[in-house]
């Protein structure tokens, strides 16, 4: 009897489950409803408070970097919006956010008066987290973490804007913006850092005694202290059929960045200085003034002309030092060796730009834009540094620096860039738009470098960086660039259910450098060096809506690029053009939207990407002594798959349910490369699922709760940055 009842229940359930989507009643009832009585309200002014609590196991720093939120959670005011009519003509708008933990803050107030203008003041700040990965050595299974480093960078902006905007008069604006970027982030450096006593060196070479001071990538921490101020004023006037805008900008940059060396695993203590090595430092100060004038004249409905003029004058001061850590086999310790001290430079830039666009409709179905841009810029600089080395006899106990010589450079370069551009659009066929675009950037550059710290090879092959050239050497170079870009595309709606879009493009960029040097002590040589690439690609899109509640959106992108280099022959003249690189990209994306009922919404997305870069460099040696070991530079594969799904469901009159999932996979990890060095290619897995409820408590109060689980694994870091765990989110929105 029990079996029979169970069978009956199953049969009934199956019938109901299968029939439910076919039942027309509910859809009809919903479709014919005159209004949505149960709709969630939209608030004119509101405050939303929320809190987020992750419970992450594993590498919490990697979680923070990925989720842009700290592993110990955040809470506060997620969103505040107030709009209030102070008088009949004056409106105030306030925007705010204050999330403690994620250090995400926003506060702005805007007061506007109809047909007069507005004032606005605001402050915004947010934090980016870094995972502090210093390197992973697969063959030794060693992982370097920048321990005890709370790595993050804060970006903040303070602004003030005042505008006078009258419908029948000129408009003016004055703005000031102060932007700051401070913090510490992970980076890497190249230095003579291999410790002969360390068991972790270069993967395949584990345990092999290496020459001291063999360069390799080492982790370091980059410190940022960057300030940027912009003061800008503009005026817009209209006369006859013309609108003219004049804008003047003062801009100051003051950056003090640096690097701190981080020890390798198993490395010995750093003797000098005792704890850390302050590596490179780099200071930048620039001051610039820019004035822009843009006019737009609408002669009639058929023809309009836009003309722009711009002038920029900039002066700068650079400073800093460049330090390479070194390892001493006798002291078994690291030292700093200053490579370049007292770096200084005083660049100046003058940049003149003019452009014009003639926009017209040659026929009722045609639209054409013909543009031309002309730029001339000149950069000049005098700078240099002091060559400083660590005395070899001082490596055992202390750092004694020896100044070898001072290098000075006086250089300038000019660019004269002309860019014609043509855009055409044809709309003569119903539901079809065809367009084409062509531009050609032609640059006649002239570079004049005095003491550029790089020689020109005597066989005429271009710039060589092997040895500093003698003081007094001069290098001249003409830099001629011809960069053509072209596009052809169409947007077609053959039926109301189908939209088709296609765009093909071609980039043909050629850069030719013809140089000559006056190399002190030797004869002059000419040199020719040309690089170029061509890219052909296409984007195809199809949006198909077989039913009003169902749509398929497909996008396919393809790019094929070839890069090449041409040098002159030993005896002069143009040499062979050699292929240097090949890029292939195939990307297909699909989004399916399905709303069988207005109470249900389902969306699925997937991106499949094949992206590889191949260069012609055949192989490198990773072991210098017999037996020699050669490892090819493998292709740079950047393939991945991303899939996501979203389902929204009106659970009852006051509650929505939303389920969301994300899945990512990159499988480019190649430990074979470990014998040559790192990195090894990106390989990772990421999955997350979130279930959320949105509930209307009253007409003025809404709440949202989400719980989720995420899991991340990384092959590239040997699993040392894996993390997983649940997280919870709660918010309350109150109508003000």
């Amino acid at each position, binding site marked *: 009897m029990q079996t029979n009842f169970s069978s009956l229940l199953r049969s009934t359930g199956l019938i109901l489950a299968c029939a439910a989507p076919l039942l027309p009643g509910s859809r009809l009832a919903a479709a014919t409803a005159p209004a949505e009585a149960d709709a*969630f309200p939209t608030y004119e002014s509101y405050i939303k408070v929320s809190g987020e609590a992750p419970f992450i196991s594993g590498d919490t720093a990697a979680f923070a970097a990925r989720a842009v939120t700290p592993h110990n959670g955040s809470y506060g005011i997620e969103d505040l919006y107030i709009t209030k009519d102070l008088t009949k003509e004056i409106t105030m708008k306030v925007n705010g956010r204050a999330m403690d933990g994620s250090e995400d803050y926003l506060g702005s107030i805007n007061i506007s008066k109809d047909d007069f203008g507005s004032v606005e003041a605001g402050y915004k700040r947010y934090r980016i987290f870094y995972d502090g990965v210093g390197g992973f050595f697969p063959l030794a299974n060693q992982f370097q973490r920048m321990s005890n480093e709370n790595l993050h960078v804060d970006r903040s902006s303070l602004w003030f804007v005042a505008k006078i905007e009258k419908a029948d008069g000129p408009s003016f604006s004055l703005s000031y913006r102060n932007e700051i970027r401070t913090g510490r982030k992970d980076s890497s450096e190249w230095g003579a850092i291999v410790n002969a006593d360390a068991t972790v060196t270069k993967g395949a070479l584990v345990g092999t005694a290496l020459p001291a001071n063999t360069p390799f990538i080492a982790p370091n921490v980059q410190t940022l202290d960057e300030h940027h101020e912009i003061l800008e004023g503009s005026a817009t006037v209209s006369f006859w059929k013309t609108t003219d805008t004049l804008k003047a900008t003062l801009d100051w940059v003051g950056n003090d960045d640096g690097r701190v060396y981080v020890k390798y695993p198993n490395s010995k203590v750093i003797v000098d200085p005792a704890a850390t090595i302050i590596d490179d430092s780099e200071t930048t100060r620039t001051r610039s003034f820019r004035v822009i004038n843009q006019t737009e004249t609408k002669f009639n409905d058929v023809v309009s002309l836009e003309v722009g003029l711009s002038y920029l004058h900039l002066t*700068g001061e650079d400073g800093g030092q460049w330090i390479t850590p070194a390892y001493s086999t006798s002291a078994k310790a690291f030292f700093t060796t200053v490579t370049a001290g007292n770096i200084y430079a005083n660049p100046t830039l003058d940049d003149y730009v003019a452009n014009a666009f003639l926009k017209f409709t040659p026929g009722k179905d045609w639209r054409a834009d013909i543009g031309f841009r002309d730029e001339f810029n000149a950069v*000049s600089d005098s700078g240099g540094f002091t060559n400083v080395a660590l005395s070899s006899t001082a490596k055992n106990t202390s750092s004694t620096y020896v100044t070898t010589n001072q290098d000075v450079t006086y250089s300038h370069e000019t660019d004269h860039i002309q860019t014609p551009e043509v855009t055409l659009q044809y709309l003569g066929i119903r539901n079809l738009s065809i367009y084409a675009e062509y531009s050609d950037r032609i640059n006649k550059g002239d570079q004049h470098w005095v003491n550029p710290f790089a020689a020109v090879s005597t066989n005429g*092959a271009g710039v060589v960086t092997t040895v500093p050239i003698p003081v007094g050497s001069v290098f001249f170079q003409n830099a001629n660039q011809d960069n053509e870009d072209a596009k052809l595309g169409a947007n077609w709606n053959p039926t109301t259910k189908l939209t088709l879009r296609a765009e093909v493009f071609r980039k043909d960029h050629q850069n030719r450098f013809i140089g000559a040097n006056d190399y002190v002590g030797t004869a002059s040589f000419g040199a020719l060096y040309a690089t170029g690439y061509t890219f052909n690609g296409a984007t195809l899109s199809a949006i198909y809506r077989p039913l009003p509640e169902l749509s398929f959106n497909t996008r396919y992108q393809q790019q094929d690029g070839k890069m090449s280099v041409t040098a002159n022959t030993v005896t002069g003249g143009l040499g062979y053009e050699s292929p240097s690189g090949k890029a292939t990209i195939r990307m297909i994306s699909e989004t399916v939207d399905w709303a069988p009922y207005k109470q249900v919404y389902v969306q699925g997305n997937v991106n499949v990407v094949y992206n590889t870069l191949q260069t012609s460099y055949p192989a490198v040696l990773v072991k210098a002594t017999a037996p020699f070991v050669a490892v090819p530079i493998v292709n740079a594969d950047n*393939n991945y798959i991303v899939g996501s799904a979203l389902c929204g469901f009106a659970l009852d*009159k006051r509650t929505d349910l939303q389920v969301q999932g994300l899945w990512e996979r990159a499988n480019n990890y190649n430990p074979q490369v470990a014998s*040559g060095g790192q990195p090894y290619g990106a390989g990772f897995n990421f999955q997350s699922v979130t279930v959320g409820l949105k509930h209307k408590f009253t007409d003025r109060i809404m709440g949202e709760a989400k719980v989720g689980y995420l899991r991340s694994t990384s092959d590239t870091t040997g699993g040392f940055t894996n993390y997983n765990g649940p997280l919870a989110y709660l918010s309350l929105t109150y109508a003000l």
Partner: protein
Amino acid sequence: MSPKFHWSKTTLLFGGLAVWGLLLVSCISVDRTVVVPPHIAGAKYVGSKACAQCHGDQVDHFAGSTHSRLALTGADPKVGDTGCEACHGPGSLHVAAGGGPGSIINPRKSPETCFQCHLEKRGEMSLPHTHPVLAGRVSCVDCHDVHKGNSVRGGGAALAASTETCIRCHTQQAGPFVYQHGAIREEGCTACHNPHGSVNDKMLVARDANLCLRCHLADLAPGFNLGGYSSGGAHANALGSRLSEGACWSAGCHEDVHGSNVNASLRP
């Protein structure tokens, strides 16, 4: 000992039944469109003319924008295939409310509306290395001006240079440099970075020496040598070559890869 959960036909059957039951109850009793971005529940299309009343500047210049190329003559604006509502959603509630943030789709708040056509950007911005757009810290319109001119600011015959979008925030890379990396002069920042997202650190289009070797060819035909990359040159050290070890731009070598004012080799 806690019982172990197993999926079975019965579980699926009754689970499915429960879901459809909820669906039936919901459909019969609830008169509301589920709130899923980027839709405005209950709103109807009103056409772009209604938008021009308050957003005249955006409407006036839209005809010359990249996105306007997709606009079709003869298309019914009421279905939202073209014009403002193609991206901002149906505007009837927004118009009725006299504006306000909750009654219209604002791409500055959420990129969902952009993802409707730029499908691949959803995936790119989900990757580990991207600008924090999905996290809400920056938005698509911080870099793209979709109402006027070229959506990718600068470049072509526009007054602004193609790099100006990036250097507004990344001032240390702005220069000017008397020794500027040629890739920036020619193609801008996107020659090496994908600002929408990458599987690689720093949003690089490739994370090893291949990135550089695309243009800086290591070996030419026999008898040719470019910059000592082949055996015996600076890049063929005692261990064969440093090129295999990852990154030409690492600190200590071509550290100032964006440009330098003291060294033509982009070192300090």
